[in-house]
């Protein structure tokens, strides 16, 4: 799955965040989906993009 949508991404076990064509960071889903979703949203906000 390749997506701009944080909600879809929260269903994955691992999320690779891309920025300017490079892997910016990696997230592992160790918690419940809704908590993981929050974490992705926060990270996106701190990265300053969509």
């Amino acid at each position: 799955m390749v997506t701009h949508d944080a909600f879809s991404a929260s269903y994955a076990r691992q999320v690779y965040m891309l920025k300017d064509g490079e892997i910016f960071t990696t997230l592992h889903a160790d918690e419940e989906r809704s908590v993981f979703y929050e974490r992705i949203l926060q990270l996106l906000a701190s990265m300053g993009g969509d």
Partner: protein
Amino acid sequence: MQILRLSIANFKRNIRFYLSYIVSLSFCAFILYDFLTLMDSGLLEIMGRKNQDFSHMILASMIVVLLFFVFCFIWYATNVFLNLRKKEMGTFIFMGLDQKQISYMYTREMLLAGLSAIGIGIVCGVVFFKLFAMLFFQLSDMEAEISMQFSVLSALQCAAAFLALYLILTVKGYIVILKTSIKDMLEATRQSEVIKVTGLRALVSSLLSLMLLSGGYYCALQIGEMDSFAYMLLAVILVIIGVYGLYRSLLPYVLNRLSLKKEFLYQKLRTLWVNNLVFRVKKNYRTYAIVTIMMLCSISALNAGLAFKQRHDAMAAGEGQFSYILLSPEKLQISDFNKAAAPFGAVEYQAELQGFPHTYQDADHLIYTDMVISYSNYRAYCKRIHKEVLAEEPKAGNGLRLSKKYLISMANEGGDIVSFPEKTIRIQQKSEEYYFGIMQNNMNFIVLNDEDYRAVTNASTQYMHMQMVQLDRAVHIQALRKAFAPIAKDQVSALGTDPENDDMAFVRVMYAACFFMFLVFVVSCGGVIFMKTCNDANDDYSRCQILKNIGISKRDMRRAVHRELGFTYIMPLLLTAVSSVFITHAIERVMRTETLMPINLLTLGIVFLLYLLLYLISVQMYEKRCGLSARKT
């Protein structure tokens, strides 16, 4: 001053001869100026910042290709002119001019031709810019307010680029004349007219070139997916060498063989032109080969550009299949959302889908996350969105995969096995047809039969509920998200396309630019063949006189000339047509489309019409030059 006047007089006298050269070059200048103005005008700003940068990059690279091409073209043309005029120059020497003065005169003459070409090109560019831009935007499917524009900067850049190329080549011509001996000048147009092409060596090289060309076509037929690079490279190399060989050995060989057969030669005036044609083809094989290869390149570029555009359009259409999609972990209270969306338009249709994203590893340890749905859900969903299902319900252990279209992908496709902890599913059918709008761009969809679906789900499965909605008018997704915010409560996501954020729009510009480059190549290739026939007509003057003296009627000679010239135009065109069919087939396979061939045939038709026109002009010119025109009889 005297010399300047002489060069102007010469230029005027030879204007007919320079015509194809000036027309081709001014067309190049016209396109160059309009490309530059388009970049300068800010019209591309409507595409957004990123796309504008990409489009500038595409146009800039096209300009580099164009300039390189112009350089080769001028190089070639100056050589042709030089050879043609050498004898005349020899005569000038006897009249008392020295070589330096002749070089000076010749340089002036070339500059005059060049300057008029640039002048005409830029004037045409200014006058037709609006038409050009309208066509460009039409081809790119974009809308913009286009006004008449004149960019001094672009005109200067264009003129400077052309002049720089010109100066380099004129200096070269100047030096060449200085270094040529008088004897060479006087004998320049006299050549050995017997060319032996029937020996064993000729047979071997003919067969070899035929094999290479067929090998190239075979490779083109073998090109399957985007990863068949080896075949692509091999096809390109073999076709280029094959085309060269075809003109160099095969065609002269076959024609010569035929001319040795009396039953063939003594029919339909063939004695008058077949041998001459053998001589011409053998002498001009490089030109014909280059013309054919260049036309092939431009046709392939055009086809590839078109395929990219079609694919991009299909992707954009797939993304925009629905006005918006709602995603939620729970079943949605859709009536609340419909109420909130009411100001944005009336609902045309909506459909619900339930599935779960499943993460698995394939045999190569690549990790995928695909959406898994049940067949009964998929069938009901298709009915709601008024689409036919892809296939019947798969049997146990089998599944269907619906994936996104890629613009270009160098990666291998995913394997055909999807593994679940409970069982393994084999993909029996795949498709890139869009059923799930932008969701399908995000992830692949796997459709299982109902029994398998139940088997791979359990109490802990995290479902995703999707609601696809089509409204009766376009919707602004950001505004819609704001309207949904109070009821969405962070757990519902609204997906939609943002038309202002189309990050692939530059593909359309690529197609439009390819189209204009194609025009430049075709016009110039026509110009090159035209120049060659002009050159040949000059050579043939004495032959025509001899034929006239031995009592051959002008009518017969004209008919022979028509056939010979027809052949010189038809040969490259025919070879281009045959090769382009293979190339188009290969591009269709790589880009997974089936719609290029009719457009390719249309393109070939346009080229054919242009060449027919050039052929008619050439015939006129040839007859006049060799004293065969009907008026004089």
